[in-house]
């Protein structure tokens, strides 16, 4: 048995099974959560590529699977990645139970997760662009559920992701040419431009970010949140893969500046627009855009510390986005997500309100929350490299904070002074756990982040 069979083929087959069973929503939800947890635990305890003794049995999980002459590789160094991806999936699937998602969500999301792992493991990795596009196509029914017309956000999402595929494929071909002839500076420049455009479309970097807030205002918040968690995560890991594979790309002199410029602008644009939002779901979209900008800034550090911060930021990001998306889903069942409708919500739904605020505080990088430790290290290192970028980042962070404090003001500004708490217990339990986790990670980061550093094991050239 091979590791790609266990962590790619099995989940794909399982997602098909879940598709046929989709009418039994609770069963599908629980089995998907348990299955993902099982895969995460298996990745934690089963070494890949060495003999495993289990009682009288001895067997080996081989790291390779060949398909049509191409290889899918998931070695021992990829185990941390598998643990993270499947644990995050289990977390999102479990939350889906209280989020009133479409019955297509779990089967399709499971398929998307397995394709994400396939994209990260395929060799040569230009095929990752094609696999990611298949995942994008699979995600469309989640974004335009039956019975609802598809909006502009979905259309732009599809267009930009398809453009990304084309650019990455061409960049992959050109990269082969650069490997063969590293002295050709023209080809090198063209390859970097193609790669840059590909990732700009993939990651929704400014000015290709417009679909994110649109999507958030059109689609169920939990489903849109999942898409905005998984696709940028795949693209970021693939960016690490490219940097790991190509020495010429790591050493390209203009790369840190380009990343800094793109990251700084994306953070600033996300923050400035966040300050003016009047709808909670769109605010979430702009926070996602800023997070992508911060990820680019960590990559721009081009140092070991930068890569450590890059992988460490995955946990607070995934957790904050999940908690916020779950809180919005719980709200969207009963009310509009406009600020006008949310006035005084703290007195009616304190747990949901506090969860939204905690997630936003964490994503803004406020002290004592999960996002703070990584943000602090990033800003400390960035300030030594570029003061101009720091100004852009400061503008963006100020915008994010204005957005958060406007939300806080809306939530506490009650027309009536009495407390009328009416919250469902199922989402509340999950939200309390999630919000507490955001605080605990923020207060004790060293309990959690060192295990995330192992994600870099898959990228040996970056260590």
């Amino acid at each position, binding site marked *: 048995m091979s590791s790609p069979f266990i962590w790619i083929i099995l989940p794909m087959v399982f997602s098909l099974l879940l598709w046929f069973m989709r009418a039994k929503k609770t069963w599908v939800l629980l089995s998907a959560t348990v299955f993902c947890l099982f895969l995460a635990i298996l990745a934690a305890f089963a070494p890949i590529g060495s003999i495993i003794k289990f009682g009288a049995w001895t067997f080996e999980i081989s790291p390779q699977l060949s398909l049509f002459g191409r290889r899918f590789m998931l070695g021992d160094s990829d185990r941390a990645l598998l643990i993270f991806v499947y644990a995050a999936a289990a977390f999102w699937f479990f939350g889906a139970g209280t989020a009133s998602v479409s019955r297509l969500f779990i089967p399709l999301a499971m398929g998307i997760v397995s394709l994400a792992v396939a994209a990260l493991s395929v060799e040569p990795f230009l095929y990752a662009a094609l696999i990611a596009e*298949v995942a994008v196509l699979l995600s469309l029914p989640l974004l335009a559920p039956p019975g609802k017309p598809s909006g502009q956000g979905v259309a732009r999402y599809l267009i930009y992701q*398809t453009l990304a595929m084309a650019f990455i*494929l061409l960049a992959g071909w050109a990269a082969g040419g650069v490997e063969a002839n590293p002295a050709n500076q023209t080809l090198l420049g063209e390859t970097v431009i193609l790669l840059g455009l590909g990732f700009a479309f993939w990651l929704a970097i400014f000015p290709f970010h417009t679909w994110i807030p649109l999507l958030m205002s059109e689609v169920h918040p939990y489903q849109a949140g999942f898409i905005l968690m998984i696709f940028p995560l795949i693209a970021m890991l693939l960016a690490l893969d490219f940097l790991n594979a190509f020495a010429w790309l790591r050493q390209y002199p203009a790369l840190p500046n380009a990343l800094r410029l793109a990251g700084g602008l994306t953070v600033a644009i996300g923050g400035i627009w966040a300050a003016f939002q009047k709808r909670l779901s769109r605010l979430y979209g702009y926070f996602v855009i800023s997070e992508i900008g911060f990820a680019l800034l960590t990559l721009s550090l081009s140092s070991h510390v930068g890569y450590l911060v890059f992988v460490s930021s995955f946990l607070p990001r995934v957790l904050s986005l999940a908690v916020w998306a779950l809180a919005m889903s719980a709200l969207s069942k009963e009310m509009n997500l406009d600020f006008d409708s949310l006035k005084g919500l703290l007195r009616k739904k304190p747990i949901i309100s506090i969860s939204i605020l905690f997630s936003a505080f964490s994503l803004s990088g406020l002290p004592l929350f999960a996002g703070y430790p990584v943000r602090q290290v990033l800003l400390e290192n960035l300030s030594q490299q570029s003061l101009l970028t720091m100004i852009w980042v400061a503008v963006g962070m100020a915008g994010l904070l204005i957005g958060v404090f406007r939300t806080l003001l809306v939530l506490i500004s009650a027309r009536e002074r009495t407390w009328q708490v009416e919250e469902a217990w199922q989402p509340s339990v999950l939200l309390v756990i999630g919000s507490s986790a955001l605080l605990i990670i923020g207060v004790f980061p060293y309990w959690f982040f060192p295990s995330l550093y192992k994600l870099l094991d898959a990228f040996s050239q970056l260590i």
Partner: protein
Amino acid sequence: MIVDVLSIFSVVLLFATSIFLLVSQKWRWSIIALSIQYLAVFWLVGLVWALPLATVKLVVGWMSAAVLVTSDPGEDYIDRKFVGLPGLLFRLLAAIMIGMIVYSIAPLMTNFIDTGMVMLWGGLILIGMGLLQLGMTTRISRIFIGLFTMLSGFEILYAVVERSILVTGLLALINLGLAIAGSYLITASNIEEAQ
């Protein structure tokens, strides 16, 4: 000689069909134009690939068109932004500008993709016209026509540099997936399924 003439004819056919797709207000006719476009794409790809492999592009293109034609966008396909003669003239002018841009940048592109001009003209015209279509509409049915046009152009250029069977297979899968997704999104509002 005849191959050269047919290749030039293919490029002209690509330009003509892509202009028709830009201005057409009838879904069925647009799908027929898309099918003819795939015939020209097949001919151009056949210049650099073995015929059986190039046939995959044609078959997949026609299958995609067949999938798309099953969904009828009805009124949604009618473009209400650029209406009447001024709208038609504006779109034709935009298409001619795309043609001129392609004609002027194609020689420069040979430095990057080393191939004949017909391949570059064909690929770039479709990419340009596809992007034009995508930029001029917000209608989901027209967006898919634009995506297919752009993707066909990309596939012509990519056929020059990559001949892997797996890539061909995956691109075929993406084309079919896109057609199914298009068909689904066009009709999504009419499908009933409980939450």
